[in-house]
C-alpha cells in the first residue's frame, strides 16, 4: 500500500490540510483534489462544458490520469479537445487525459450485456422490437444506464490500481441535477431492492452520495436565475441525497474597465457625452456601418455597458456568497475569440499558474 507515490500524496495532503486550516487555498482546485468522481452541473450556457474541459486539463497537467465524460449531448469536448469520439471506449488525448461521450443507447447495451447470461441473449433482447420500444419509452432507463457506465469506469483497475485518478462528468444541462443523480435511488426503491439491477442501482447511489469520494460542483453565472438555482441545488442535495454541494463556481465574472477611484471621472464623462448627443446608448445597437464622429460616444457607452455588467455581477456574487452553503470560487470572463483558448485560460486559473492570475483567489 505504502509506495512512494502514496507518500508523496500524504505529504501533499498534509500540506493541503495546513493550508486549509489557515483558510488559504493553494489553488482553486483544492476542494476537488481528493475527489475521484467530480460531477459538474449548471444551467445551459453558463460555461459548464468549458469548466469541465478546464478541470480535466488542470488535473491531467498534475499528472493525474483523468477521464472527462459527457452524457449523450452535442459533444463540446470534441471541439474543445479536438478529437473525434468512437463510442464508449475513452479516447486517449495525452498521457493522462481521456475523454468519451456516453451515448445512452451504447450504455444501455453495455449494461444489459453485464446483466444477462451471455451476449447472444443480450442481443436477443436488444433486437426484440417490443423490448426496444419498451426500454426506449420507459422513464429513467437512460439515466440509470449512463450512471452505471460511469460506475464501471470508476471501478476499473489496471494491475490493482484504479485506472483513472479522476473522472469529471459534464452533467446534462436540462432537468435538475438532483433528479438525475437520484434516479438510481428512486429506481432501487421501485424494485424494493430485489434483483441484480436493484443491487447495481444501490452501488451507484452509494458512490454518488459519498461526499468524501465524489464532488458535485455547480457552475453558474453571476445572474439571478443561475445564482438562485445554485442556492436551491445546495439545499436540495442536502435534503434529497443527504450530501452537500462541494463547490460553487461563479463563471464569466466581468472585470471593471476602470479603478473604483476613477469612477466619478468616468460618470462625469458619460453624463457629458449623453448631454451633448442624446440617444448615444442605442448607437451600439446599430448594425449598419456608422459615423466616425460617433467613435468617442461609442467608446464611452461601451465602457458604461461593461461597467453595468461588472456591477450586476458583483451584486449577484454577493448574493451567492452569503446564501449558498458551499465554498465559492470565481472565474473571470476571458476575452478570447476561440473556445479552446478560453479553456486554456480557465485551466491555468484553476491550476493556480500565477502567471495568468488576474483575479485574487476567491473565498
Amino acid at each position, binding site marked *: 500500500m505504502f509506495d512512494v507515490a502514496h507518500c508523496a500524496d500524504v505529504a501533499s495532503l498534509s500540506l493541503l490540510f495546513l493550508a486549509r486550516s489557515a483558510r488559504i487555498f493553494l489553488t482553486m482546485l483544492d476542494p476537488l483534489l481528493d475527489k475521484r468522481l467530480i460531477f459538474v452541473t449548471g444551467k445551459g450556457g453558463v460555461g459548464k462544458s468549458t469548466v469541465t474541459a478546464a478541470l480535466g486539463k488542470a488535473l491531467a497537467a498534475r499528472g493525474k490520469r483523468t477521464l472527462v465524460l459527457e452524457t449523450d449531448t452535442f459533444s463540446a469536448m470534441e471541439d474543445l479537445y479536438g478529437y473525434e469520439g468512437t463510442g464508449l471506449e475513452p479516447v486517449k488525448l495525452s498521457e493522462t487525459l481521456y475523454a468519451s461521450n456516453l451515448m445512452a443507447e451504447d450504455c444501455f447495451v453495455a449494461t444489459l450485456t453485464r*446483466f444477462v447470461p451471455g451476449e447472444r441473449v443480450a442481443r436477443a433482447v436488444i433486437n426484440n422490437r417490443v423490448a426496444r420500444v419498451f426500454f426506449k419509452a420507459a422513464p429513467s432507463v437512460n439515466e440509470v444506464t449512463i450512471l452505471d457506465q460511469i460506475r464501471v469506469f470508476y471501478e476499473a483497475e489496471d494491475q490493482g490500481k484504479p485506472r483513472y485518478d479522476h473522472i469529471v462528468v459534464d452533467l446534462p444541462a436540462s432537468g435538475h441535477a438532483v433528479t438525475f443523480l437520484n434516479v438510481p435511488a428512486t429506481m432501487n426503491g*421501485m424494485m424494493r431492492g430485489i434483483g441484480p439491477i436493484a443491487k447495481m442501482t444501490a452501488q451507484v447511489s452509494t458512490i454518488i452520495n459519498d461526499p468524501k469520494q465524489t464532488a458535485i460542483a455547480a457552475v453558474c453565472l453571476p445572474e439571478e436565475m443561475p445564482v438562485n438555482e445554485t442556492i436551491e441545488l445546495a439545499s436540495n442535495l442536502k435534503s434529497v441525497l443527504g450530501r452537500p454541494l462541494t463547490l460553487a463556481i461563479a463563471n464569466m465574472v466581468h472585470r471593471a474597465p*476602470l479603478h473604483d477611484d476613477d469612477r466619478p471621472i468616468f460618470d462625469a464623462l458619460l453624463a457629458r457625452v449623453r448631454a451633448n448627443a442624446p440617444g448615444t446608448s442605442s448607437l451600439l445597437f446599430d448594425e449598419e456601418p456608422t459615423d466616425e464622429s460617433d467613435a468617442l460616444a461609442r*467608446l464611452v457607452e461601451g465602457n458604461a455597458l461593461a461597467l453595468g455588467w461588472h456591477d450586476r455581477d458583483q451584486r449577484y456574487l454577493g448574493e451567492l456568497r452569503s446564501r449558498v452553503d458551499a465554498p465559492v470560487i470565481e472565474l473571470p470572463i476571458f476575452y478570447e475569440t476561440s473556445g479552446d483558448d478560453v479553456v486554456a485560460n480557465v485551466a491555468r486559473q484553476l491550476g493556480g499558474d500565477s502567471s495568468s492570475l488576474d483575479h485574487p483567489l476567491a473565498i
Partner: protein
Amino acid sequence: MTASPRSDANAAPLRHLLDSGRLIVCVGPGGVGKTTTSAAVGLRAAMAGRKTIVMTIDPARRLANSLGLDDLTNDPQQIDLSDALNLTGNEDHGGELWAMMLDSEKTFNDLVDRLAPDKGALKRAKENNIFRLLSSALHGMQEYMALEKLHDLYTGGYFDLVILDTPPTKNALEFLETPGRASTFFDERIIKWFLPNRKSGLLGRVFNPGSIVLGLISKVLGESFVNDLVEFFDTFHYLQETLQQRGELIEFILRDPLTHFFIITSADPRRIKEAVYFHEKLGQLEQQADFFIINRVIPRFHPEDIAAIEDTDLDALLREADHEASADRISGLRQRLETHYLQLARLAIRDREAIASLATKVGHEALRLIPLLGEDVHNLTHLLKLSDFITPLAPDARVATAKG
C-alpha cells in the same frame, strides 16, 4: 439582418407571421434567452391584437413577477398589458397576453384523472410503483407533456396564437418524429406481453415459457417489479387509445401551414452549430425554421473607433470631470477605457463572423438579432425592447423605450 429597430427591411415577413400564425414552436440550445425571447415574441403578438399564450418551461422568477404573475402555474394566467400600451403609446387592439409554466407532473396527473374510467381505477393507478416512477421522472418527458398541454390550448378555441418554449435538449425535436412517444409506452404490442391472458391467468401469460424477453426482464429487474408492471399496464389500459389519438392530432397540428418554427440561439460559434443541427433536423422532418433569432449578440464595438479618437480630445474631456487629476492618472484611465473597448470589439467581431457563417447557410433574410443588454431582462420595459428588436410593432408606432 439588423439589430436596429430603425432600419428594418426584414421585419415585415415576421410581423405577418405573428399576425397570422396559430402556433410558434421555439427551439434552441439552453441559456441563450429562449424563454425570455418567447415571452418577447408573445408580447409583440398580443400588442398587435392577438390573444396569445406563451407556454414556458422555466421562466426566471423575476420576469414572471414583473409581468404581474406571482407564481406561474400550470394554468394560464393573464398578464396586464396596460403598462406596455401606455409606455409605447399604442392603442389597444384587443389583444391579450397569457402565460403558463409547464408542470409535467401535474399535467400527467390531470390526464390520468380525466381519463380514468372510475374512482377505483384512479386509486389503484396512483398507488402503483411504476406510475410513481413515471411521474417523478417526467423531466425526460417534458416535451410530451408540453404537447399534451398544447393540445388543450390549441383545441380549446380561446387563443389565436400559442407560443411554445421547448426544453434545451438535443432531443427537443424528438417529439416531431414520434409525437406519440408517451403512447408508444402503451404500445399495444407491449401491453399484450404484460396483460393478463384471460385463459391462462395473469402470471401464466407473463411467465410464458416461450417469452424469453419477459423471463429476462423479470430476471434482471426483479419479479416484484414485473408484477408492478403487469398491474400498471392493466390499470392504464384506458390511456392507450386516447394517447394514440392525441399523438395523431398533434402530428397534424405540427404539420399545419400556420405552425411555425423559430430557432433561438446566441452568436457563440458552438451554439450556432447547434442551431444548424436543429435546422437540419427540421429539414429531415420536412419542416423548416421560419426565423433564426440570435440573442445576446455583443453590441457593435468598432476597433477602428480607437484610431478615430484623438487622445488629446479624450484626455481633455476627462480632465473637465476632475481638474485636480494628474496627467498620469488621466492617460492611465484613457488607456484602460481603450483597452477594454478593444477587448469587447474582438468579441463583437467574433459574433458577427459566426452570424455571417450562419447567414450563408440559411440566408440573411431569415435572421433577426437581439443585442446583449446591460442588464437582465426582468421587466416589461426590457421585454418591450427585445420585442422591438424582433420586429417593431408598426412602422409608424415606434416604441419610445427602444431608444432609452
